[in-house]
Every structure is written in structure tokens, then in C-alpha cells.
């Protein structure tokens, strides 16, 4: 089935056939069975996400936004259709290969930070490196580098409970960059933070995108983050409603043009 498209804009924004694609979906569908009820979370999504871009995903509750995230992040498999991450069909991967994927190719940033409470910041950052088989010393060195990147080098020995929300999120970002992933998946990264701390995070993310060429896929409602994006995608009722370049979209405090009432 083809996606419905709002006639006001083209579905894919400025398309560049030459740009390398990092994530591609073909007729992606996902349904959940809960008892007798079958819910169709995604009803056929065809999109291409380019390497090195910064894209924000928006959509109301129940729109299938998180399901889409799970698919794209290798956290779940589709019911039908295909997801290609770096040209690899996710559905073909077994559990071990999926774990590899999550370890090396994708970094995750959560709204609730999800740090390990009984480890220091440095230990938290080195966990993915341990899974990738990096030796202890190398891991620690690289971990400190990552913490420097997010300006937390002097707090490397602090436990999450000793850090503020912003610091925890920064640690999480450092962790997500540990194995030099190609993609960063951010799920409402500043949802639990105040405006000023949030701005810090936004800056760091943009920096990663620009300086380190990391593809960033964000689910967010924060307009300032949307402001930094290259493209913006709306999902509604399990379908892509619209994808637009940043330039095509008016972002204002309070409201963004072209958006349904949230």
C-alpha cells in the first residue's frame, strides 16, 4: 500500500539520489496481538534516512512513533516489510548478530538516561566497549575521551546518583558514542530536563552530528531541537504523514507551522 501524503508538501523533502542511505524501510508493517485484539502500529512505511543527517521524528501518542523507533534501532523485528540498516536486512539477523548491531552500529539515548546505578560514569561509558571486546586500558582511555567530549572528564568517578539530570544525560551520550556508531537514536533526550540544561544537550548533539558525522534520529517535541534538524518527519496512524527539510518548515516558539494540534 502506498502511503497517504498530505498534498501540501512532497513526502520526502529534497531527495538526493546520490546521498548514501543509512536506514531504509520498505513497506514496513508491525502489528501487535494482545489477546484477541490485533493492533496495527505501523501500516506500511517507506522512507530513506541519509548518512550524516539530523532528522527529528514527531507524532502524537499512539501514532506508532516509538514502534518506528524500535524498528529502526534494531530493537524489534517487523511483522512484514523490510528494514535495512547500513544495507543489512534486520529481519535476517539472529539474536547474536542483532546484539552486534546494537553494540557497534547504533547508539541509544533515552529520556530516562538508563545509566547503571552502581557504576561510575567512566564504567558506564566503558560497558559497550566491554561488549565489543575492547581491552580494559583501551576502553578506559577511550571512555575518558568520550567524557571529555561531553565536558564530564572531571566527574568520571561519580555515580549516577551523584549527578544531575543533565550530567547523567551527557554521560549517556558519551556511552552511546563509545563504539563509534553510525547512528544515534535519541528518544526524547531532553524530556526530563529544564530548558537551559536541555540547550546544552542540544548543542552536544548538534556537535556530534557536525563534527563526528554521526547520523542522529531524534524523537522529540522540543522545538529548539527541531530547529537544529536537517529534516523533520511526521508520523500519524502508523504512516508517514510528511517529511520536510528544515528549510521548508517554519519553527516558532509555541507552534510549528504545518502541524496538527498536538
Amino acid at each position, binding site marked *: 500500500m502506498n502511503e497517504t501524503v498530505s498534498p501540501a508538501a512532497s513526502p520526502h523533502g529534497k531527495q538526493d539520489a546520490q546521498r548514501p542511505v543509512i536506514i531504509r524501510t520498505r513497506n514496513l508493517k508491525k502489528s501487535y496481538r494482545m489477546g484477541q485484539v490485533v493492533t496495527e502500529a505501523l501500516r506500511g512505511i517507506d522512507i530513506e534516512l541519509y548518512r550524516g543527517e539530523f532528522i527529528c521524528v514527531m507524532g502524537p501518542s499512539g501514532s506508532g512513533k*516509538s514502534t518506528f523507533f524500535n524498528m529502526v534501532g534494531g*530493537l524489534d523485528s517487523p511483522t512484514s516489510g523490510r528494514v535495512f540498516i547500513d544495507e543489512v536486512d534486520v529481519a535476517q539477523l539472529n539474536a*547474536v*548478530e542483532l546484539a552486534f*548491531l546494537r553494540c557497534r552500529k547504533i547508539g541509544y539515548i533515552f529520556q530516562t538516561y538508563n545509566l547503571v546505578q552502581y557504576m561510575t560514569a567512566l564504567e558506564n561509558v566503558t560497558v559497550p566497549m*566491554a561488549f*565489543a571486546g575492547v581491552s580494559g586500558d583501551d576502553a578506559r582511555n577511550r571512555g575518558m575521551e568520550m567524557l571529555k567530549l561531553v565536558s564530564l572528564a572531571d566527574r568520571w568517578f561519580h555515580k549516577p546518583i551523584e549527578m544531575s539530570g543533565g550530567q547523567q544525560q551527557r554521560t549517556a551520550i558519551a556511552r552511546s558514542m563509545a563504539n563509534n556508531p553510525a547512528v544515534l537514536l535519541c528518544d526524547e533526550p531532553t524530556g526530563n530536563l529544564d530548558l537551559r540544561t536541555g540547550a546544552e544537550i542540544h548543542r552536544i548533539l548538534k556537535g556530534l552530528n557536525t563534527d563526528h558525522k554521526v547520523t542522529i534520529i531524534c524523537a522529540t517535541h522540543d522545538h529548539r531541537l527541531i530547529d537544529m534538524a536537517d529534516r523533520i518527519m511526521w508520523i500519524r496512524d502508523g504512516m508517514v504523514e510528511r517529511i520536510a527539510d528544515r528549510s521548508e518548515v517554519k519553527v516558532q516558539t509555541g507552534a510549528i507551522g504545518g502541524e496538527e494540534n498536538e
Partner: protein
Amino acid sequence: MKIMDVKDQVSLSFGKCVELVLSGIKYRLFRAAVTVVIISLAVAFLMTMLTESFVARRVADQIDLRMAPRRTFDFWTSRIAAPLAEQNLILELARATRDDPRWREFRAWGGLNDQRMDELVDVAGKQLPYQRFFDGLDEGKLRPLFGRTRGVEVFRRLQDEGAYRQFEEEFRTLGLKMHASLDEFKAFLGDWKKTEPMRLAILEGNGKALSSLRGKLSGQEPTAVLAEADQALPKLLADHGFQMDANELQMVKQQARLSLDADRLSRLLSIGRIKNRLADRRNADLATIDATMYFGELSTSGGAEWFRDQVADLARTIKDLEKSLPEDRAALAGLETRAAALDEKILRLQAAATQKAKDMETLKAQAAKAPASDEAIKASLKEAEQADAAAKADVDAAEKEYKELREGKSDKGAVLAVGLDDLRQRVKRDSETATSLLPARANIETFGLTSARIAQVAANRMEQKKLSEIEASVSRAAGESGGLLGYSSRTMWLIAVSFVVCVVGIANAMLMSVTDRFREIATMKCLGATDAYIMINFILESCLQGTAGGIVGAVLGFLLGAMRSLASYGWIAMQHLPWELIGVTAAAALIVGVVLSALAAVYPAWIAARLAPMEAMRIE
């Protein structure tokens, strides 16, 4: 489409794994501690039982060892005292092997050869289980089966067709089950009958040999014979078919001597004087003096010395009394005669005095009536008064003499002669003493034991008593638990239940842990953890706790078991702890702890491993 190249994936070293698990445990120390406590309790329970059982077994062995000389002595005294009983013959046959002295004895008495002996041993071996089975039945079953016959006679009775049929019917009706089938039993009965003449021959041979032997021993008590035994005894015994070897001779002789000396000491305890003195020495109530206290006192070197002095003192007393008592008795007899004579005399004099007084009164009355001029009456009256006074004086003198006789003559406090009363007392007392000492006289006079020997004998007696008590305690414990290390089903059941409770409790705690940590687990998966890693993480955590709990439990269980053994059996339990066995058991208990905790963790770990990483994302 690219095929993914998976290399270097999850080459998470085991060391790193352990490190991560340990930091996790540190964070959840309380819950980990609870798990450790649960495991250690279950392991301690198991370990306590095993320790107690091993120690009891070791104690039983030790006691067997220490009581062996006494047993050998008892064995030989009973053999010399009375002929072999059929029941004992069966028991010994069942145990006998070809190089056994008993084998040679029975063969000689019964006039049998080795082949025949084999048959006998075989039949005896079969007979015992049947006998044990029958002995284990209660009266309500024995009556219908065997009427009034019991013991070995049963096998004799069942030779009769009618009796056997009754037995068989009742057996089936009662639904009993033996270790063998009824057919096997019937066959056995046939063998039993066939071998009976041989057994009777042995018993007869033994009886004859024994009476001949006793004739040679000319009526001496077995203990006395053994106490005086020299190299000639084994030869004498061998001539009559009894096989005693050189080791046994030494052992038996020593035990016989100890027994005789102990008896001598016992007999002396019955003397009242000794008992009194012992009560004084121990500051105890006379009623509480018993053999234990007696031998306890005598087993110390001080007590033994004291006792020797007492016996010497008694010997002296006997000697003194031997001389003094007859003398005193003679003196007493003399005094009694004089006293009797004096008594009589006093009576006479008193009668006379009364008469004189009467006369005086009569004359006084007359004089009062008569005129004052009657000189004759006055003169008679004066005479009568004098007579009266004299008579009274006589009586007084006699009475004084009597008193002196009774109380003894003294001169200003010094005793010049012993009075009758005192002498009577003394003779009575000394007679009683002599009477009480008389039975033990021979014992006392020939008491040649040194204080060292006294102490040795007493100590030996005390030890025998203690060992018997411990033995009783051990077999009591064995009876309760269904045999040492052959645990009763009740014990097994308890242990199994404790394990199940342990596993369930830990699984429950782990499931709680999984629930608490779902976000953490999902995040780990996002970071690249495989399902296998998650499972290993949980099982490893549980195993580490199991190890800690196992160690604590093993140590605790050992200490508890050792203490209980100490309480039951005394210091003998500690003297010979079977360390190697306990070490192995502790290791096994530790492994049990680890296995239990691993088992408990399997289900929770599986649940955790199956958790989908998308749970880590916020739930919309």
C-alpha cells in the same frame, strides 16, 4: 544486501563478567545477603546431620576399640562358666571364617571337616535374617504363626508338616513379606534339618569339653582362673578344644585382675565406717554415697592414698579389737555379777532398814504411852534408834558402792576404774564394729593393693561405665535416625524439603530482582549484551551467593554438629574427629549450595534473557 560480519562479538572475558556481577551484588547487598543466609541455612542443616553422623560413627569405632579387652574377658569367662547355647552357636557360626579360631573349635568339638563346616556356616548365615525377621514381629502375629514357640525352637517346630502348614497359611493371611520367598524358606528348613545333627554334635562336644575342663580347674571361678593364668592355660584350653591365642591371654589376664581388684574395692564400700569417712571427706550427704562417687574418689592419687590409710586403719582396729574385746567382755561379766550381788544386798539391807525403822516407831509409840520412868523402854528405844541409824547407814554404803560400780570410781576427775555403764557401752560399740568388719576381715587383712593400683582399678571401672554410657547413647541416636548414615526416610524428607524451600525462596528473590532491573537489562541489551550474557549474569550472581552461603553453611553446620556431638558423647567425640571425612563433606555441602542457587536462578535468568530491549524505551 550486505551480510553482516560478526567478529569480536561479546568476547566478554569471564573475569570482566565476574567483575560486573560483583559490582551488581555490592549494590544490592541486602538482597544478596538474604539469599546467602537462605543457602547457608539449608547447607548448614545438611552439614550438621552429616557431621553428627560421621562423628557418631567414629565414636562407636573408638568405643569398640577401647572395650575390646573387656569384651574378650567377658567372652572367655562366660565360655568357661557355662556351655555354649544354641543361639550363640548360630551367631558365631554365621560370623566364622576358615581361619577363625571358632572354626577350629567347632570343627574339633563336632568331629566335622571343613566342607561340613561350610554347610553349617551357610545355614547359620541364612538363619539369622529369618530369625531377626521373626524377632521383629509383635506378639499378635507370633501367636498365630508359631503358637507359643519362640527363638531358635521355631525352626524345630516348623519341621512338622502340620505346624508348617499353619505357619504358611497365617503368613499369607497376615500378608507378611520376608527378604526371601516362602519356597526359599522351605528349602532352608530342609537344609536346617539336615545340618542339625552337626550342630548338636558341636554343642555336645562343647558340653563334654567344658565339664572336663572344669574338673581340671577344680571348682575355681572363671575370673580367678583367668587372673592367675600363665602359659599353661592356653595349652589346657586347647586340650579341650578351646582356642585362645597369646594376645587374648594377656588381655584377659589383665582384665581378670582388674575385675577381681575392683570387686575387692566394691566389697569394702559396704562397710559402714568407710562410707561415713567418705561422706566426711567429700562433704556429702551419707545417702548420696554411691559406687560412682566411691570409684571417682579412689581414681585420684590423693583418694587412693586416703583409702589405703583407711584400710590400714581398719586392719589396726580389727587387731586391737581382737585383743580388747574379749578382755572387756570378761571385765563386763565380772562387773555385772558384782552389780547383781550388790543389788541383792541392797534389797536385803533396805528390807532390814525398813524393819528397824518399824521397830523404832513401835517402841516410840510405846514410850509415848508408857510413863517416863520406864528405863527399859527408854533403853530399848535408844537401841532401836541406833539400829535404825546403822541400818540406814548400811543401805547408804551399799548404794554408794553400787553407784561407784555403775559409774566408775574417780578421784578428783581422774578415772580410777571404768564404770559398768561405760563398759557396757564400750563393749556394745566394739561388738558392733567387730560384727561389721568381720565379713570383710579377710579382705582387709590381705589388702595388698598399692595406691597406684587402687587408682588404676578405680579409673578403669569409671572408664568402663563411661564407655557403656556413650555406647548406649550412640546406639540410641542410631536407632532414632535409622542407623548411622543410613538415614531414616524422615530425615531424608526433611533435607529434601529444606532444599526445595531454599530453591523456591531464592528463585522468588531473583524474580523480584529481574522485575526491579528490567530497565537495566533492556538497556544492557541495547548496549550489545546477548541473551546468553544476561542469563550468565544472573546465574553467576546466584552461584557467587551460593558459594558464600555454602561456605558459611558448611562451617556453621560443622560447628553445630560438633557441639551437638560433644553434648551427646562428651570429649571422646572431639578426640578423634574424622577430619578427612569432614573436609570432603564440607566440600560436597559447598557444591550443594552452589548447585541449589544455580538451579534456583535458571527460571528467573531465562525470564530476564527473554526481555525485549524495547522495554528500555519509554512506554508511551
